[in-house]
């Protein structure tokens, strides 16, 4: 299936900014819902300053009539409800001469960094307009304005607001509907942006019934449940908390439980305990939590207890940049355990894939009696998007269990597949002790060379021999140049390749979903005939690139293209790499 297409000509990007309390995120979320209601696809990335409340905030939106997976290179429209500290978003909101800024003259002039980029500026007195409609808020004016500029139908705005404000009562709804209406009407007075004008012909009406509005964190939580998870131990951490907050009410509905732990050491050990008890289990965390969890993940390797750890990556090292994205936990996910400790590492490559990849990770962990790390990131986790629902793969937890009274039961018996039947407490006649100490086949501690060698082999081979099927990567396109990437860089890479294709440059995309264990044969096949390999990732040292160089025989010339977060990987920068390299 080729997903190559040039989305740049048919999408619109809008940033709504303001200081905390201005209602930026509310306006952005409602705008996304309006677009969804109108039949569009779209996404909203949240960006905010470090303050708990009251800091600068930006809702970064992109809409199209086809699914969008990444932010565009630039923004068409920047709306400033106010400009307090908004200059801090200069890098995250690229503007150019074709962009338009709309600000409230009572809130001062737009920041110089934006003006310097040549964007035109139009004024709209959000605050005064809202004041004139008692009970309304400036962000509702901004919502109407953005919808008007984007060419969204006013009926969709009204439908969304009516649904959303139902609880607030008649007066509140009437006021804010009026405010949105006023903002919508004001769009006519804003100087048309050339690219924008061409796009206002969008037609509403595509069916909504079969689409979802979902964040990657919700999606990962749902994927876990779909895969059969019924226990979660939770410790809050930005930007993974929403996975846990979604699971908290969801698990009891399907017969499961979520418990809050005292720290990440406890949360991961709790799920090792619950899974040892036979219940498929998950936790979610971010880099600092993953660091703390590594010892117990190693225990899960040694004791062969399936667990799933969802790591929503953020800027690192240490506390780093908690609320912003970076793909810099590749090293710790792949190598962060002591000893020779094979483990599964699965990376979703879209928001919808957060469902599927997590579901698959649960299935693999259970089938292979192994820990699985799901590498999501803040971009996926906290971005809300309109997506086509991912099909249920029917991949659920299927653990090979020992039956009662199994004769001469050996928990860690050496088998051809490396997988040995696991006795679940309560089963008579098969009691054993799960152990992080090296052990013999019975599970009894052993420091003998032979036992160590056999169990190391067993644990390595069960992962190496398993047939992972086609799901190990998404392969698209063809050509002598191959872009190899993973996770949230995939959307930008896909778009870059589409642009290159439109210019006659052929290239193929390899988006890795299974990072560990390495799949040398599959990669060799996918890259057969490639003469140039561009490895794209969002971190400072090229963690994926180094891993690929270590594990694979990559054909031809191999280059690393990378930059750290929090700036997202954008289509244009990958496109430039491709075109420059192709022409050289």
């Amino acid at each position, binding site marked *: 299936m080729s997903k190559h297409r040039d989305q740049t000509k048919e999408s619109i990007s809008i940033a709504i900014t303001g200081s905390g309390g201005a209602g930026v995120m509310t306006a952005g979320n409602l705008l996304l819902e309006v677009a*969804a*209601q109108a039949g569009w696809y779209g996404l909203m990335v949240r960006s905010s300053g470090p303050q708990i409340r009251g800091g600068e905030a930006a809702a970064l939106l992109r809409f199209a009539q086809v699914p969008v997976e990444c932010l565009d290179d630039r923004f068409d429209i920047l709306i400033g409800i106010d400009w307090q500290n908004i200059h801090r978003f200069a890098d995250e909101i690229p503007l150019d001469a074709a962009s338009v800024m709309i600000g409230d003259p009572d809130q001062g002039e737009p920041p110089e960094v934006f003006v310097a980029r040549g964007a035109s500026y139009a004024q709209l007195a959000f605050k005064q307009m809202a004041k004139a409609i008692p009970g309304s808020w400036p962000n509702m004016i901004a919502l109407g304005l953005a919808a008007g500029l984007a060419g969204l139908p006013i009926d969709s705005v009204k439908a969304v607001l009516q649904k959303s404000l139902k609880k607030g009562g008649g007066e509140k709804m009437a006021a804010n509907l009026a405010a949105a209406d006023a903002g919508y009407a004001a769009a006519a007075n804003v100087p048309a942006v050339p690219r924008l004008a061409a796009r206002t012909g969008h037609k509403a009406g595509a069916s*909504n*019934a079969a*689409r*979802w*509005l*979902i964040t990657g964190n*919700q999606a990962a939580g*749902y994927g876990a*449940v*779909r895969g059969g998870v*019924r*226990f979660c*131990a939770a410790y809050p951490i930005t930007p993974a908390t929403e996975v846990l907050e979604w699971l908290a009410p969801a698990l*009891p*509905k*399907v*017969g*499961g*439980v*979520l*418990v809050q732990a*005292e*720290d990440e*050491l*406890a*949360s991961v*050990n*709790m799920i*090792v*305990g*619950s*899974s*040892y*008890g*036979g*219940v498929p*289990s998950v936790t979610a965390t971010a880099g600092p939590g993953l660091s703390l969890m590594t010892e*117990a993940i190693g*225990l899960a390797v040694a*004791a062969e207890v399936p667990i799933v750890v969802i790591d929503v990556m953020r800027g690192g090292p240490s506390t780093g940049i908690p609320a912003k994205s970076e793909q810099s936990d590749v090293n710790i996910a792949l190598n962060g355990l002591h000893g020779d400790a094979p483990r599964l590492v699965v990376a979703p490559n879209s928001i919808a894939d957060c469902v599927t990849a997590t579901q698959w990770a649960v299935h693999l962990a259970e089938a292979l009696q192994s820990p699985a790390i799901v590498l999501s990131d803040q971009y996926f986790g906290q971005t809300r998007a*309109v997506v086509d*629902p991912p099909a*249920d793969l029917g991949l659920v937890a299927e653990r090979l269990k020992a039956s009662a009274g199994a004769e001469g039961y050996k928990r860690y018996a050496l088998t051809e597949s490396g997988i040995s039947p696991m*006795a679940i*407490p*309560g089963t*008579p*006649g*098969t*009691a*054993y*002790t*799960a*152990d*992080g*100490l090296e052990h013999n086949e019975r599970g*009894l*501690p052993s420091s003998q060379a032979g036992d160590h060698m056999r169990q190391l082999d067993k644990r390595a081979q069960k992962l190496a021999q398993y047939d992972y099927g086609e799901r190990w990567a998404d392969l698209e396109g063809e050509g002598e140049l191959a872009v190899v990437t993973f996770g949230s860089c995939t959307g930008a890479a896909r778009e870059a390749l589409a642009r290159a294709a439109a210019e006659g440059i052929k290239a193929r995309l390899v988006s890795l979903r299974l990072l560990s264990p390495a799949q040398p044969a599959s990669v060799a096949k996918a890259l057969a005939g490639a003469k140039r390999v561009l490895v794209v990732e969002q971190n400072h040292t090229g963690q994926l690139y180094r891993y690929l160089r270590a594990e694979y025989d990559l054909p031809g010339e191999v280059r690393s293209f990378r930059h750290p977060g929090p700036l997202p990987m954008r289509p244009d920068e990958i496109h430039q790499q491709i075109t420059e390299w192709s022409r050289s």
Partner: protein
Amino acid sequence: MNTPAAAAPLTAQAYKSDYKPIWCPGCGDYSVLSSFTKAFAKLQLRPENIAVVSGIGCSSRIPAYTNCYGFHGVHGRSLAAAAGLKLARPDLTVVVASGDGDGYSIGGNHFLHACRRNVDLTYVVMDNHVYGMTKGQPSPTTEPDWDSKLSPGGTGLRTFNPLVIALAAGANFIARAFAGDPNGTAEVIAEAIRTPGFSFVEILSPCVTFRPEQREWKQLVRPAPVTSTEDAARAARRIMTDDGMNIGVLYKADRKPYQPPMGKGKKHPSDLEAEFAL
């Protein structure tokens, strides 16, 4: 707590495995193991319905010496693993074995929160005031002047009073036992298992190798001169003022155990999709 067996009564021997302990001759932990199996026999629990969970240290080797399901995890985290197991599998009887290093030092935070969370677990800490497995370093319960290679001349630090901490943190059942009295200890463990909620049993278990002077404990221990109380303030006064040698159940309350309803919800995962649908 699981249901007692209906068939022929199980003896203490039925709960023992054929695996030989690594402990030094004379170690108090042998007696504690025997108290475990006696307590299980007293309650007539099916071995397969018991899980013995531990961390790292001499005392934490206990699980494999029983014929029950065992979990020998990482250092200090036994209470977390045990809580996960019990919450996911409320039908099991979960007993946790630990020591003063594993339980009070590296696992100290989990101790606080296990008391507070009050999951129906029995937590048995074999306290010998020393790290034995690493061959003789001071633990949180070691006397400040105890000389060792790692702390020449002693740590100079006051000792940790685990019973007071358990009480302050919300443990529902607090007892002290002595390894030299395996029958009495078995009684206490059985009562701890029988009592819903988080039960904490501190067992004075001599380390004859690194703390040979602890052989004298058998002359020093005595039954607590008073019966157990439900009054936390009274219990606190007693625990804080005794010399650490009073044996018996010292505090017992009836706080409701923490057990969110596992397995109650009957929805299918796809029923959850409605909240995402446009």
